[in-house]
């Protein structure tokens, strides 16, 4: 296993093209990140997110020859996962997506993950405030929520987001500003001081 840690994504792609067993290395490298992204973005349960990711990995494998080495593999993989997640949501018509304010123990909501990974939980220590943040994020439109997730939780730069969403960087910046403004507006309406 250790030998794979040194290898770049491009090298792993080349290996996977030669031997399908090697594709497992790429999956191992990205599984956790991509699962987290799906759950943060779409608020899917662990089980549903895994279904989406499984399909996405199969798609990634089928399209390995389409990977453009001038891009980051991660951006390319996120792009495929993004599409697969949207397809899943459309197909299931939100049946398995959850409101972020849900208390269903089987479902980890987006805000739970957000809180566990960001300073939001530190800033909003009190449970009451935490609930409000949760509500605010849950009510954000999906495209705003996604761009906030990519920028602030996945810590991606504009260029990577542009490659994932297939939008020009200027549009990404605009969308991000709108998402932030929308979040702040909703926060105000919910008497939330951040």
């Amino acid at each position, binding site marked *: 296993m250790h030998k794979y840690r040194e290898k770049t994504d491009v090298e792993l792609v080349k290996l996977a*093209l030669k031997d*399908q*067993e090697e*594709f*497992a290395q790429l*999956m*191992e490298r990205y*599984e956790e990140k991509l*699962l987290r992204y799906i759950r943060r973005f779409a608020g899917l349960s662990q089980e549903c997110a*895994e279904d989406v*990711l*499984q399909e996405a*990995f*199969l798609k990634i*494998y*089928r*399209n*390995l*020859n*389409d990977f*453009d080495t001038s891009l980051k593999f991660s951006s390319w993989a996120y792009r495929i996962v993004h599409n697969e997640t949207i397809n899943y949501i459309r197909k299931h018509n939100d049946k398995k997506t959850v409101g972020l304010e849900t208390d269903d123990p089987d479902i980890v909501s987006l805000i739970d993950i957000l809180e566990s990974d960001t300073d939001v939980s530190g800033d909003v220590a009190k449970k009451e405030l935490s609930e409000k943040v949760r509500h605010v994020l849950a009510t954000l439109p999906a495209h705003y929520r996604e761009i906030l997730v990519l920028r602030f939780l996945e810590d991606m730069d504009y260029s990577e987001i*542009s490659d994932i969403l*297939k*939008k*020009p*960087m*200027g*549009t990404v910046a605009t969308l991000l500003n709108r998402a932030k403004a929308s979040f702040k507006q909703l926060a105000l309406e919910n008497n939330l001081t951040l």
Partner: protein
Amino acid sequence: MSKLSKSVLGKIKKCHIKPKPRWQFVALRVLFWVLFIISVFLGSMATGIIMSQLAGVEWGFVHFVGGNKAIGFLMVLPYIWLVFFGLTLFLAHKSFEKTKKGYRHKSITVIGLILVLSVILGVVSHQVRAAHGFEDMLRTHVGTYDKWEDYREGMWMNPENGIIVGEIIEIDSDTTFILNAITGEIWAVDTAEAVFKGCNDPEIGMGAFVTGESVEKGDFDADQVKLIGGDHHRSPFGGKFERKCGE
């Protein structure tokens, strides 16, 4: 190895899934570039034809076509080509967007560049008469288009509104010529009291816009005559008249 990775790998093996060959992706990318180039080419042809058709319109006479200038102007616009140009613009934009890194550019920039490119190429195609050739080919091979253009030309033939257009086929006297109208009717045009716009020397083979009054069937008293024809005139009458004014 995680459960998920095992499951994916298992499915890959079980279903004999293989990565699609690289050539398929390359072919797809090439296809989008080809579509883009074809769209820009057709767009520039459309622009060239629009320019030719607009250049061929006798703007001083359009009020005879529609009753007033505004309606006349709207009636003579080459709508088919404007719509076609819009479609090529859309197709070129969509094809470009689907190229490898097309998404990185703003739609407004891409559309602007395609527009500029189409206009430049359109001017060139108009100048070198490639657009004319393209349109002639359409008129020869696409009956519906030919009929449509005949209809558009026919709009200029409106004796009730005081305008007739056609080719001079005979010079009867110093003040009368015989006009074979674009609708096929023969008119004797009396130019005794007419003002000639541009050149004033009608000759057989020239085209003529004549305004005035239809005195009886086949006779027309002209008050204005504009002799037309030659290379710079295109639709609605381009290529119909062999002689250029002043030749």
